[in-house]
């Protein structure tokens, strides 16, 4: 219904009178519409800006971010042994690999890998997941990586799975995640199951020949 048709009575009400004036001046879109939209937009932006601190407060706080790095003495980890340490609330594998495990990892063709990227925080992004690129400083015997399955975060079990080195009845190296069945090889690379990525290698450096600092 247009404004002009609403003149039922001879004497228009105040509202109707005002409507006639603004309609006559600017047809449909008038100054009031503009003010409504502008006010609404300011309120909307204000609401969004106010919401931000309420959302952002859930991110890691300063105490969590002030992370202590940890030092590990590798000489206490014997060959074939694996220790699990805690860093940033997450478990880390420190594994002293035997030669058979290293050889098995090196024998794998790049084409057979589910995730061909090294996932090593200490080297350039996107390099191949060769066995060399999974360790730091060419120290192949020490494989240090997050003990967090890249599927849903469980701790994989060591010396198990289809990609361990089998010698008689014992398995060495290789990891199997008990939660959803992901299998990692002796270099911690994903080979089978739902996990999308190789076990991540955290940032660490050698302080001396047998001592490293993670973080």
């Amino acid at each position: 219904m247009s404004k002009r048709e609403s003149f039922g009575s001879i004497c228009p009400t105040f509202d109707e009178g005002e409507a006639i004036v603004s309609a006559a001046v600017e047809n449909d879109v008038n100054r009031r519409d503009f003010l409504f939209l502008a006010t609404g937009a300011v309120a909307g932006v204000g609401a969004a800006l106010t919401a931000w601190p309420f959302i952002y407060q859930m991110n890691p706080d300063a105490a969590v971010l002030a992370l202590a790095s940890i030092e590990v003495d590798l000489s206490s980890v014997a060959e074939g042994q694996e220790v699990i340490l805690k860093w940033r609330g997450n478990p880390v594998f420190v594994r002293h690999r035997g030669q058979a495990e290293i050889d098995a990892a090196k024998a794998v063709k790049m084409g057979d890998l589910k995730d061909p990227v090294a996932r090593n925080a200490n080297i350039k992004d996107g390099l191949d997941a060769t066995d060399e690129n999974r360790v730091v400083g060419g120290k192949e015997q020490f494989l240090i990586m997050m003990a967090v399955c890249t599927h849903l975060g469980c701790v994989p079990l060591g010396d198990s799975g289809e990609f361990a080195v089998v010698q008689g009845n014992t398995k060495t190296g290789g990891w199997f995640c008990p939660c959803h069945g992901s299998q990692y090889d002796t270099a911690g690379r994903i080979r089978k199951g739902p996990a999308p990525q190789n076990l991540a290698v955290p940032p660490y450096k050698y302080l001396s020949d047998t001592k490293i600092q993670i973080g």
Partner: protein
Amino acid sequence: MSGPSKYQPTSAIGKWFHERLPIVAFAKDHAMDFPTPKNLNYWWTFGGILAVMLVVQIITGVVLVMHYTPHVDLAFASVEHIMRDVNYGWLMRYLHMNGASMFFIAVYIHMFRGMYYGSYKAPREVLWMIGVIIYLIMMATAFMGYVLPWGQMSFWGAKVITNLFSAIPFVGDYVTTWLWGGYSVDNPTLNRFFSLHYLLPFVLAGIVFLHIWALHVPGNNNPTGISVKGPQDTVPFHPYYTMKDGFAIVVFFIFYGLFVFYGPNYLGDAVNYVPANPLSTPAHIKPEWYYLPFYAILRSIPDKLFGVLAMFSSILILLFLPWLDTSRVRSGKYRPIFKLEFWVFAAVCVALGFIGSRPPDPTYVMWGQILTVYYFGHFIILLPLMGLLETPKPLPSSISDDVLAKSAMAK
């Protein structure tokens, strides 16, 4: 509610109050006089049972919070303190813990009843969709509650479930860090879960109000699926259904009591009585029984992103149910093919639950995959096709006729 309110305040003060806030009239219209189909069977009592269970969970929960400490170093011990030291603490906790399971038993029966009798069909689509949202919030609430005792299963369940969000492309890692408030499930995570676990039941109560509002617009569906045609088809909610629901609630409480007093840990996992250890995943982790079918679907797909997508879709597909079912006949009673298929589907859901409780061995994974295909096939292929292909049986002319025909047969 059809027609004007029957409430007439008699006292002067009642009249004075009614003119200012007609809440008594509202309560009388909706909780007492509400015209309800006279043929509702006991499957219809689970709505009332659910409302009571929500109240039970809120009351026992408020009491537990008086004694619980949400901190990674103290939470586990505080739950044991509730069990051993707090007066009737064991009762409050077992009521709350088993109450969650009872809540889910009732909600599953309520949902399958809706599916069998076509309660999601026009004009009740919005009612059904609000119900699906209630179910989703229930799942989130129960999950966060399970984390609070900070046992091994609490911790690893939290880790696995929150890690589901890391499957989101590009921003997944930021989302999980945001959810955790750190780099892993830790004290900030426990604190926020506690806060939300306390909040969400009250949100649920609000949405339940909307659910009942949406129910009271078209009124109840009924076992014949045909609409109410007049006053001869209905009885007032009170006393007929307050009594019927009340009886069902008492029977349900006996069932609930059997678990609380004679098998309080039967539905739980013993591993959750081991304090959380972030360095060691239990050999066999699995969620609480009520999530198992969805967990089986997650594990059936050997890809992280698609597994997570399949799991969420398996729940969200329920939102589309009103439009996936092409049959215009509501009640499964009059749909010979659907009636059989419904029970196959129900069995598939139970079987998926069984698979979800097993370790991820190849045989179980394969069965999980077959059942997952059927689960989705039910919604995407079978429901639309059955509606088009099957010839429904003749419907009774009214609810009243159906009831009278039955009582005549009984004689």
